[in-house]
């Protein structure tokens, strides 16, 4: 047993265990923490397989950005227990699990490439090889994926953005160009008269 083997089993075991905890944890925040642990170990597995670029992307995108926003939402919502009991959700959960299992079994036994392609074609580093493929052979697909993400982003903004009248906003340009003369006004009000906004 070599050191990489040792780390493979470690990562795989922690990955499986934390995946189980993601669905069984009672607190939502704990579930997200276990999800993050699962992501970390998946990244570790990628790196052990020699796919260092994918591993780092997993860390940066999923752990560094997606899971942070997840955690943000879960923490600020403070929903406590998710609604519904396990018994009520069991049929749907089982159905989803069965479909996933079937798909995995299909990939493992029937379809998919039987041989794992060499990670390093032609002796170039894996990042470089990936870049060449993405920006030449698969450039159209890559751009398409980007466009889909853009549409999703615009959709989210359109759904969440609403114009609220009467909100006081800061205008940095106006703040910068403001002079001392405009910001201070000396008033000498008559007794009992007070000062009004417009009374200049």
């Amino acid at each position: 047993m070599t050191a990489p083997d040792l780390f493979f089993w470690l990562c795989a075991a922690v990955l499986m265990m934390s995946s189980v905890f993601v669905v069984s944890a009672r607190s939502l925040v704990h579930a997200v923490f276990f999800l993050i642990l699962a992501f970390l170990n998946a990244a570790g597995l990628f790196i052990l397989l020699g796919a260092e670029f994918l591993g780092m992307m997993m860390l940066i995108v999923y752990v560094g950005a997606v899971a942070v926003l997840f955690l943000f939402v879960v923490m600020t919502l403070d929903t406590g227990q998710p609604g519904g009991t396990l018994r009520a959700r069991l049929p749907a959960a089982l159905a989803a699990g069965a479909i996933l299992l079937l798909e995995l079994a299909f990939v493992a036994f029937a379809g998919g490439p039987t041989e794992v392609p060499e990670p390093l074609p032609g002796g170039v580093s894996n990042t470089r090889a990936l870049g060449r493929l993405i920006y030449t052979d698969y450039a159209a697909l890559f751009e398409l994926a980007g466009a889909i993400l853009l549409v999703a982003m615009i959709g989210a903004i359109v759904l969440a953005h609403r114009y609220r009248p009467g909100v006081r906003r800061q205008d940095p340009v106006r703040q910068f160009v403001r002079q001392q003369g405009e910001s201070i006004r000396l008033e000498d009000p008559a007794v009992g008269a007070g000062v009004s906004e417009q009374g200049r």
Partner: protein
Amino acid sequence: MLDAVLTILQVTLGILLVVVPLLVCIAYLTLAERKVIAAAHRRRGPNVVGPFGLLQPFADGLKLLTKEIVIPSRANRVVFVLAPVVTFTLSLAAWAVIPVSEQLVLANINVGVLYLFAISSLAIYGIIMAGWASNSKYPFLGALRSAAQMVSYEVSIGFVIVTVVLCAGSLNLTEIVQAQERIWYVVPLLPMAVVFFISALAETNRAPFDLPEDEAALVAGYATEYSSMLFVMFFLGEYASMILMSAMGTILFLGGWLPVPGTEVLPVPGIVWFALKTAFLLFVFLWVRATLPRYRYDQLMRIGWKVFLPLTLAWVVLTSAVLVAFDWLPEGV
């Protein structure tokens, strides 16, 4: 099996060789901070413990270690203790890929820059966990501020890294430094270097962007409920990430271990140049803290999203256009 044990022992030794000097640097950075700020205030700073106050960090450390660890009764104990550990560990883990000289690097991996970027984006978790586990208002607000701030500034740091990688043609930190032999990237990419430094201030929660621990408004932010050893770990983690950001700036823009142009004949080892450049950037960190007032939170977000993001994005396009137009693209791409 014996092989595996030997490998692990060897790696452990290497890690110790990086971590122990780093801890000493952190200890003296705290002293340097007090001395620099004292100089800015025209005071003397710590000068009682040891000659010139040189033993002050150790006295402070011992004092903090002997304090009692208080865990709030309503806190989530496991996450509460885990949070500072995560912060501290991550700030040390990043050092594995930093090349301090041509040969001296623990792990010379192909995607070194991405590794650094990934680790610095993970650093949020320590703070979010601390804020949530404390189960109290101020730490939670501090944690939310910190998370939003770090996510925002990571975006511009990412684009700064992209411009440097475009010029160097590699994600390997050693190769990035070697690519600067002709000219340090701070010269052609000066605006990016400035954006990087300011984003580094925000990313490490340092003044003038230290809103997560805003002592006037949030007591001490995410660290409010922490004491003793656990607080020390947050504190050390913050300083370690300051040194890390300075080292990153040195590698990306100041030519890493390369000597200052014109002094190549001097027999100065590369590691000394590296240390000097990093120390210079650290000094600027402290200088900024002693000079500038704290930003307002909305101003901080405005700079991040409305100024830095468009600027860096435009600069990425400009850099690639120039590289293609003048056929300056690095070889082997």
